[in-house]
């Protein structure tokens, strides 16, 4: 753990009690995330990647080990509104305009009216949705809705952005486009991003650090620090470095998958 560590997990365990007995969702997870990193969590379903993200967000309580976010417990960090969370579905309120949806966290957190308007305009521009403020969600495509939900997570300017398969439900062309935009956004805002995915190219393309996980029990099998430069055009995916990292991720996934 160094001075610029934002998220730190030591020997983290989480066991769910179910009717079929205990389920080890997370077992002995150790991980440090430094400020400004883009960390992807990749693995098959049941590997605990979403659960780990929810632990960081204080939405799930670990049953063992320590986890700190900005030096606080996850629950304290949640109260301090330390992160923005983007879910798998955009989950915009159909009765609110795009602007109204982005404003939601600002209203809840008690920002002044003038500040709300200013921030809504700023983050909508950031996700290329300027001019859509007065539209209702049903008037936007799925990709645009997800961008609006990212704007909503950015609106209160938390340093950490947690994203749980935000583009999982979108088609590949839209997804490529959004990945590109997300990288640009990350470069401009210098946020620390935790990103759950089960797409290898997406993880390699986006991340500075790739965390490979495997199921039963959910654990980390490999942590890869990406040698790719920060500047990443889409065609970097044809480079040798890219293919090498993708290969290593695939190997990691295969190693964790011996039993089935």
């Amino acid at each position: 753990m160094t001075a610029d560590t934002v998220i730190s997990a030591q020997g983290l365990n989480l066991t769910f009690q179910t009717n079929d007995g205990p389920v080890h969702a997370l077992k002995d997870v150790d991980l440090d995330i430094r400020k400004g990193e883009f960390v992807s969590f990749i693995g098959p379903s049941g590997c605990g990647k979403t659960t780990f993200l929810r632990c960081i967000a204080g939405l799930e309580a670990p049953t063992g080990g320590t986890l700190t976010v900005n030096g606080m417990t996850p629950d304290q960090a949640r109260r301090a509104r330390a992160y923005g969370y983007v879910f798998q579905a955009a989950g915009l309120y159909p009765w609110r305009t795009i602007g109204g949806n982005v404003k939601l966290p600002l209203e809840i957190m008690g920002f002044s009216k003038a500040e709300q308007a200013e921030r809504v305009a700023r983050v909508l521009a950031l996700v290329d949705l300027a001019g859509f403020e007065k539209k209702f969600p049903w008037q936007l495509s799925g990709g645009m809705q997800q961008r609006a939900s990212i704007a909503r997570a950015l609106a209160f300017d938390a340093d950490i952005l947690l994203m749980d398969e935000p583009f999982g439900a979108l088609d590949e062309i839209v997804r490529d486009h959004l990945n590109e935009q997300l990288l640009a956004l990350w470069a401009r805002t210098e946020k620390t991003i935790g990103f759950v995915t089960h797409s290898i190219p997406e993880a390699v393309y986006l991340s500075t650090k790739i965390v490979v996980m495997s199921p039963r029990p959910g654990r980390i099998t490999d942590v890869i620090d990406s040698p790719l430069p920060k500047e990443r055009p889409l065609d970097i995916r044809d480079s040798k470095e890219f293919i090498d990292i993708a290969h290593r991720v695939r190997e990691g996934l295969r190693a964790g998958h011996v039993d089935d």
Partner: protein
Amino acid sequence: MKSVLPILTIVGAILLIWVVAVIPMNMHLTADQAQRDGLVVAPATPAERQAFSGLGLSFANPDLIPLTYNLDRPRLPSPHQVAGEMWDTIALRNVTSRQSLVYHGWVTLSATLVGFVIGTTLGILLAIGIVHNRAMDMSVMPWAIASQTIPILALAPMIIVMMGQFGIQGLLPKAVISAYLSFFPVVVGMVKGLRSPDAMQMDLLRTYYASSSQGFWKLRLPASVPYLFASFKIGISAALVGAIVAELPTGARAGFGARMLVGDQYGNPLVTWAALFAAAITAAALVAIFTAMEKLTLRRMGMAAA
């Protein structure tokens, strides 16, 4: 407007069945009357005719069929008789007259509306309690369901007599019975509506560290609006039924229920049928008003699209 044709088709079918049914239903009475008027009827005596069904008698006396539509006190009034009675009592009478269906309608409607307001207020408050309080969740719903299994016809006189003991008469006891019937759909609909946001929506608010009252006003309440209108539509018709039922067993002098009873007791089915139709039209109008309000509200909320 697309719904006009199907609706008219159904109305036409009902009218057709009605018109056809009038003949056998009224044939015995028609034959008796025709015999008194000196017409030839087969068979000749009422006692012999009792052995026939209405249908059989109609086939035996095809000449009498037109007469079945114009009896003074028919067993089944024909459509034009009911329409005539309604025209007479709605359009031609002064609305303050005791003969006016508008007057009787207002008596019932005012009790309905007061009862509906009481019932929906109670229903919404109960639903909020059930959603936010575990003890209420466990305890209130079974009682609400049990309350609706009691026949209202048995309960109505008790409520009216009991409230009469305390000197409360007229509109309020009827409104209480209306409220008793209308709170239930509102409770059920609102509980479902307030719980309609999914786990992800609730998690999103947790990431903002939102209070539960913020969750209520910003998420649960707006999400419940479509459910609320569905409940309103069921509730308002239940409230109308409640007000009418409240007028039936207690000798009320005014209201749709009183008219139905008067028609029945004095052997004048036209009065009963006219009141019945007026009540049905009132209920349809009330539901139509809520449908229009629903459309308007959802459109303004941006939820009526696609």
